[in-house]
């Protein structure tokens, strides 16, 4: 007592960080994410050796890198998830500035790796795709602006965020990277929707999207070919999509067995865009359903927790992050089963790719941080309606 009174012993003001983190974190979502990461490594072991051999690398080159980047992604995720929403917001806004500058400088300093689109910075040992990091930062910035809009006497944040969204989309479309551009638009739309968009405007936006699609179809051959491929009812068995579909059929319910799959031999993107096909072939429908269930659990649980969130920023940013995470997985798997037109999109946390993994770590880290259990004024509600009627 004496020490306490005189301040000789350090006194804890709040709860220690880790116990508080463990108490408030969404453990279900966290376990789902770790499981997905584990599945990603497992599938990397299956899918990438043929590619590594083709590129003259050691068979497990890609798996090792996946483990390395995955480890970094987990560190980033844990670090981010321990931040307070304010901290997330501050770093997110700063990050957006950095990522946007990087994006703007791509045409000057970037490289296209011979794939026809300048999307990467080559760092020698690895490459960085700024648009991957831009996504979570953009969401946080937008959420902040929209939340500010709800304050009385606040700035016209929605208008600002819309202008920023359009600018970013334009930059992405110039690369061209319509996939990321549509993801940015989608996340903005979702946040606007949750943040209280007038119904009339929503309908108008849906119309605009269709228009934009038509314009892109008419002006970009790249885009048009993919849509044409989707609309034709027959799957040409010699395309990537044909191989993927066949792999799923080949796998059946229980798979052809570990290491017995063939599709990884013929698909150049077996370890990224079509990893779900490898999963389906070797491990069968059972693993695919598990993966789908994990993604669904993460998204639905996060959205569910966000319904109780009273802080507008946390709610909007959380919604944006959960949706962009979920929709990316949805598009990737939807393409593999031909529910959606062919669009190169990684499966978050499962596909190979350094930028994608670490950015995924940022996304889920921020999501975890925003969905942590916080006092939501329930006691105040109970004790006194705080003077409200």
């Amino acid at each position, binding site marked *: 007592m004496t020490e306490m009174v005189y301040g000789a012993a350090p006194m804890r003001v709040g709860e220690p960080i880790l116990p508080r983190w463990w108490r408030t974190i969404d453990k279900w979502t966290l376990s789902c994410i770790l499981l997905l990461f584990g599945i990603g490594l497992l599938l990397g072991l299956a899918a990438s050796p043929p590619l590594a051999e083709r590129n003259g690398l050691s068979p497990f080159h890609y798996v090792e890198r996946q483990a390395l980047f995955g480890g970094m992604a987990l560190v980033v995720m844990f670090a981010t998830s321990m931040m307070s929403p304010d901290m997330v917001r501050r770093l997110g806004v700063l990050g957006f500035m950095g990522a946007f500058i990087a994006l703007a400088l791509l045409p000057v300093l970037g490289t296209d790796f011979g794939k026809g689109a300048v999307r990467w910075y080559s760092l020698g040992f690895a490459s960085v795709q700024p648009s991957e990091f831009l996504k979570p930062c953009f969401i946080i910035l937008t959420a902040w602006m929209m939340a500010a809009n709800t304050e*009385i006497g606040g700035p016209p944040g929605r208008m600002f965020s819309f202008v920023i969204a359009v600018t970013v989309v334009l930059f992405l479309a110039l690369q061209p990277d319509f996939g990321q551009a549509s993801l940015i638009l989608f996340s903005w739309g979702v946040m606007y929707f949750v943040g*209280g968009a007038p119904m009339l405007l929503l309908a108008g936006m849906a119309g605009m999207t269709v228009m934009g699609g038509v314009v892109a179809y008419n002006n970009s051959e790249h885009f048009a070919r993919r849509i044409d491929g989707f609309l034709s009812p027959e799957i040409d068995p010699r395309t990537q999509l044909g191989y993927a579909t066949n792999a*799923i059929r080949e796998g059946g319910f229980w798979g052809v067995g570990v290491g017995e799959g063939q599709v990884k031999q013929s698909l150049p993107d077996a370890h990224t865009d079509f990893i779900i096909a490898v999963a389906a072939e070797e491990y069968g429908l059972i693993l695919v359903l598990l993966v789908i269930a994990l993604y669904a659990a993460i998204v639905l649980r996060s959205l569910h927790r966000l*319904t109780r969130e009273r802080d507008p920023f946390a709610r909007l940013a959380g919604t944006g992050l959960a949706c962009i995470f979920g929709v990316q997985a949805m598009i990737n*798997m939807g393409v593999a089963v031909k529910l959606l037109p062919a669009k190169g999109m990684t499966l978050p946390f499962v596909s190979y790719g350094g930028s994608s993994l670490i950015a995924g770590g940022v996304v889920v880290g921020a999501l975890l941080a925003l969905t942590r259990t916080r006092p939501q004024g329930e006691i105040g509600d109970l004790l006194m309606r705080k*003077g409200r009627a």
Partner: protein
Amino acid sequence: MIRTPLRPLARILQARAKGENPDAIEKENLRLRHEQMRDQSRTRAESRLWVLALAFMFAYGMIGMRMGVLAASEPQEPQVAVSGSAIVAQRADITDRNGNLLATNLATHSLYAQPPLMVDPQRAAQELVAIFPDLEVDRLTRQFTGDRKFIWIKKRISPEQMQQVHDIGDPGLLFGPREMRLYPNGRLAAHVLGGTSFGREGVRSAELVGVAGVEKEFDQYLRDPANGGQPLRLSLDLTVQTAIRRVLEGGMKLMNAKGATAILMDVHTGEVISLVSLPDFDPNERPRPLAQGDASDSPLFNRAVQGVYELGSTFKIFAAAQALETGMMTPDTMIDTKGPLRWGKFRINDFHNYGPQLSLTDVMVKSSNIGTARIAMEIGAERQRDFLGRLGLLSPSPVELVEAPGVKPLLPPNWSELSTMTISYGHGLSASPLHLASAYASVLNGGYVVQPSLLAGGRPRTGERIVSEQTSAALRDMLRQVVVRGTASFGEVEGYSVGGKTGTADKPKPTGGYYEDKVIATFASVFPTDKPKYVLIVTLDEPEETSGTEPRRTAGWTAVPVAAEIIRRTAPLLGLRPDIEPASTFGVTLTSN
């Protein structure tokens, strides 16, 4: 909208009266409004978040279901770079009338190389040359070390060769299955079967395509998987074919002929029981067609079908048939045979002078050109042409050989009276031996038209009558007389009543006119004459019988003995019973001691 002021005057006044700061009221009101607004947006956001959650659930559910549907469906093999239809490698067998194999398929392998997979191209090339001496080491090495990714080495290799190549142990040497057409009987029936070659080729299979004979004629049928691999049954009889080929080959050598052909036909159905053309070839190793020269010198040339010859006196029977059928004559009608017969500047002569008159039968027996020409003049060009046309002698033979439709009998440009006379004894009209066989069958089988066929069972009969039963019987009797006491006396076969007509025609020179010393000798026969079963045509090309002091070329000396030997050998095989004269005395020899 009613605006509620943030500073309600009543409360402000009250506060002022109490000495409180009225700004607090405004702040309190502001806070409350803010709270209210947030609550409102929160409830709205809550419902919209549920909408989002539902949408995601639906989307994930769809993907999961689609995955399930796909997983439950059957996979389809991704086809690697197959353009057009898949290669169907099955080809049905061909058998004779009794089901003996004439053509079948053998699974062999082709050999190809994929140099990128090769371990030691040098050694592989050397070892390959050791197995296939016709390959060259330098060339192979160059190919194996070059840029090419795929090289055919051998199209067909035997299982032993395959094992040897396998033992080289180079992973870059690979085998593709190849169906090979095998003709187990070698040269037998080569002209009927024709042959096959590879059509479209892939690594995994190659198409077998018929190139000649029935293989080409029935190509579609043989390749049609819908037939379930049912063999094509021909009318040929393997045993008879073997016997005839052997005898004919011997006869051809004995008579110093450069070619020979024999056709045995069922009189009633037109089925070709045997068709031999010599020289022949092995369809397993089908020779290349001659690049230059006369196509008829190639062993590929089917004399029985493709060879159109002036068949000489064998045609006389048609004049006799028409004379009898029209009722102008009977077998005993006497015909003026005093020679020479003049027609304009042409003169028609006989081989010998047969005196002033002969009966119709004797005109046939002695083979009188003059007599036949006079009969033909009685008949007239129009009727003769019509009659020969109905016998199928003026149009390509309908037999099921791909070569047949291209072979048109050679007719005189205008069917003059002179043509009528010469055609009556087989000059001025060229037809194939097969034409002759079906025409003989038609007039001798009782008088209804038959069409030649190579399929077991023959063609359905039209029932069209060409001559009456009596005429047919009379003709057979005349032919029998020719053998018994006429030009074909070597044709007598013990136990079988053979009838026939000889024909010796000078070969036309390509430059015009006729050779003095080159003939086509034909014997057209029917047996047995009382109950006709078979027609046999034997034709020898440029025969010379040299046992006598001077070479004899007439059919009676050349074609007839060969035909007689053929009948002697094949009639028992065909199941014909010989007429053995019953022993005259049959008793007990009494002995006394």
